[in-house]
């Protein structure tokens, strides 16, 4: 009987109320749940820029690898960067007998000092001298490598948002078997994972990050590595010079001359000695120049490619992310750019010149135009 009293107006009122309750509920879920959302490009750029603002930092990460034979290796690493190109890395892992083995490295200029415990328990200092200069932003550790991977992943996509160690993070898919989680707030990687089906093959957990840590000169002294019983020296062949002309005879070719963009200065230049075969690798004659404006850097590498002339190798044009062929004063050059920066390659008189930097394409092109 009561049903007869319910008019269409009552129904409409109930409907409107239901819609309002649902809307408020959804809004509440969004606000309280703080569901992060970002496009792949946004997440990528935040990740790439996360470390650039920091000159000095300390990070700890744990790398776990599961071998196909059932073995599992866990490596704990602590990286302290005092300034680009000046860092200390401590690695802790277990040997075949389950004992913890600690090795520590200090990079100072073009030399890397590493104290290792050999299989017989002897502490040995490995000195790697003649290390080439590097772009400061591209760190010599897993954190830097993960950021570089995010920067140049072709088909990066946001595969979801999750909480990692209690904090909101984006899950980025770099490839069908590679994922990186980045902190939704800072953009820094918090986890990297490589899978094979349902099996985790490799995982890096970036557990902590500290900007501007307290460091002393003593922390970066070779003596801080501890006592050693012997020293092994390996020469990677890089020789700093004051002027390119000093390298001509030793290098086997005359490097092309470079301009210096406004605000930049040459931080380091030198040649790779072609008579030195580092490890079992073939020697490579190259002239390397590192320029910086204090924040951004350009790394120029010149290598001899007989027969190249002023021509460049053809570049496939039908690929979505193929490098662009650009014209530099009538000469052909190839520009490859990703979120972390770019690389410009060009040929002059049988010399292949590669200019890499964490700078805009425009600056790379302007710099390329100064190359004679």
């Amino acid at each position, binding site marked *: 009987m009561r049903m007869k009293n319910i008019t269409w107006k009552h129904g409409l009122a109930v409907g409107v109320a239901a819609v309002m309750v649902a809307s408020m509920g959804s809004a509440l879920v969004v606000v309280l749940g703080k569901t992060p959302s970002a496009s792949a490009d946004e997440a990528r750029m935040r990740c790439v820029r996360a470390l650039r603002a920091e000159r000095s930092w300390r990070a700890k990460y744990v790398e776990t*690898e599961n*071998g*196909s*034979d059932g*073995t599992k290796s866990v490596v704990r690493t602590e990286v302290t960067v005092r300034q680009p*190109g000046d860092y200390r*890395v401590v690695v802790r892992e277990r040997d075949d007998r389950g004992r913890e083995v600690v090795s520590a*490295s200090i*990079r100072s200029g073009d030399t*890397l000092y590493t104290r290792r415990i050999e299989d017989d328990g002897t502490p040995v200092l490995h000195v*790697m001298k003649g*290390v*080439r*200069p*590097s*772009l400061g932003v*591209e*760190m*010599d*550790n*897993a954190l*830097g*490598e993960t950021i570089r*991977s995010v920067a*140049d992943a*072709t088909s990066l996509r946001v595969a979801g948002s999750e909480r990692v160690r209690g904090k909101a993070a984006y899950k980025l898919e770099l*490839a*069908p*078997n*590679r994922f990186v989680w980045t902190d939704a707030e800072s953009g820094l990687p918090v986890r990297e994972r*490589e*899978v*094979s089906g349902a099996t985790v*093959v*490799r995982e890096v957990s970036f557990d902590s990050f500290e900007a501007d840590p307290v460091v002393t000169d003593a922390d970066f002294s070779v003596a801080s590595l501890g006592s050693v019983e012997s020293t092994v020296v390996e020469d*990677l062949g890089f020789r700093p010079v004051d002027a390119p002309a000093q390298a001509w005879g030793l290098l086997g070719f005359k490097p092309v001359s470079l301009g210096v963009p406004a605000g930049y200065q040459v931080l380091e230049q030198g040649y790779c000695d072609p008579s030195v075969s*580092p*490890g079992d*690798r073939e020697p*490579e004659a*190259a002239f390397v120049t590192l320029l910086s404006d204090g924040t951004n850097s350009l*790394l120029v*590498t010149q290598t001899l490619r007989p027969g190249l002339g002023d021509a*460049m*190798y*053809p*570049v*496939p*044009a*039908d*690929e979505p992310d193929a*490098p662009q062929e650009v014209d530099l004063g009538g000469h052909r050059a*190839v520009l*490859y750019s*990703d979120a972390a920066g770019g*690389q410009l*390659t060009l040929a002059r008189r049988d010399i*292949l010149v*590669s200019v*890499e930097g964490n700078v805009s394409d425009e600056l790379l092109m302007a710099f390329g135009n100064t190359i004679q």
Partner: protein
Amino acid sequence: MWGQAVLATAVILLPHYLVYGEAVTFGLAYRAAAVTVLLPWSLARSAAPHLGRLCLHFFGRVPDPAFVTALITPLAGCLVATGIIAGLRTLRRGRRLVIGGLAIVGAAAVVASAALALQLGDCVRAEEQFFALMSLSETPYQSPRAVAGAERFVVEHPDSRWRSEALRITALAAEASGDDGAAERDWRRFGDSFSDPMVPGVAYAAYSRAQCWERIGSSRRAARHYRDAVSVIQGRSDGIQGWIGSDGATALARMEFAQGRPLRAEYWIDKANDVSVTGRD
């Protein structure tokens, strides 16, 4: 594919039978039968969008199936439809519906099967010819005739499972001629021809692309592909093509040294020696 088409056509036709009964005209039956027979023929011969492909056949833009096919099939459909209608007129409505439907579906199935058989026959013959051509030399990528055959095979049989092998030949030939741009393109197509991204062929393609990019001069791009190659091999437990993982990791170490990152270089040297990557255990 053709089954879906037949079903769709049957769904379109059935209301006409049910509503109009005797009023089904010869023209309608002719068109229905012709399309019902022709459509699966077309579909069976192509993975292209169905109706688009069919239209292209009619307008002669796509040479395969041949113009003759497009002519004969409607005529055959016309004859079949005439016969079916003549036979159906002597039957009662219920039986007419059942037998008419079965006849259309059956005829379509026969035509589609024949088309598939012809297509498979064509493809198998082409594959046999391709392999015969490739076996004439131990290095077919150095034989202009074999390379031309591989290029033709890639174009004419895009759905063949041996397309990847033909692309491998054309990529190697481009590398041998110094055309790294073309080689990179063909290695990419070679990698794209695998549906599973974790097979060794994908790693091989990535490794080969990295080498092309290294020669072209883009070390950043080369490093990316070396990394992809190592990642695929590392994710496998069978050790197949483990050398790709080992050589890829060695190349990455070399590039890290060149970039002034000795610790990452040592990491990749360890990786190159790691049995889980090389699969040489």
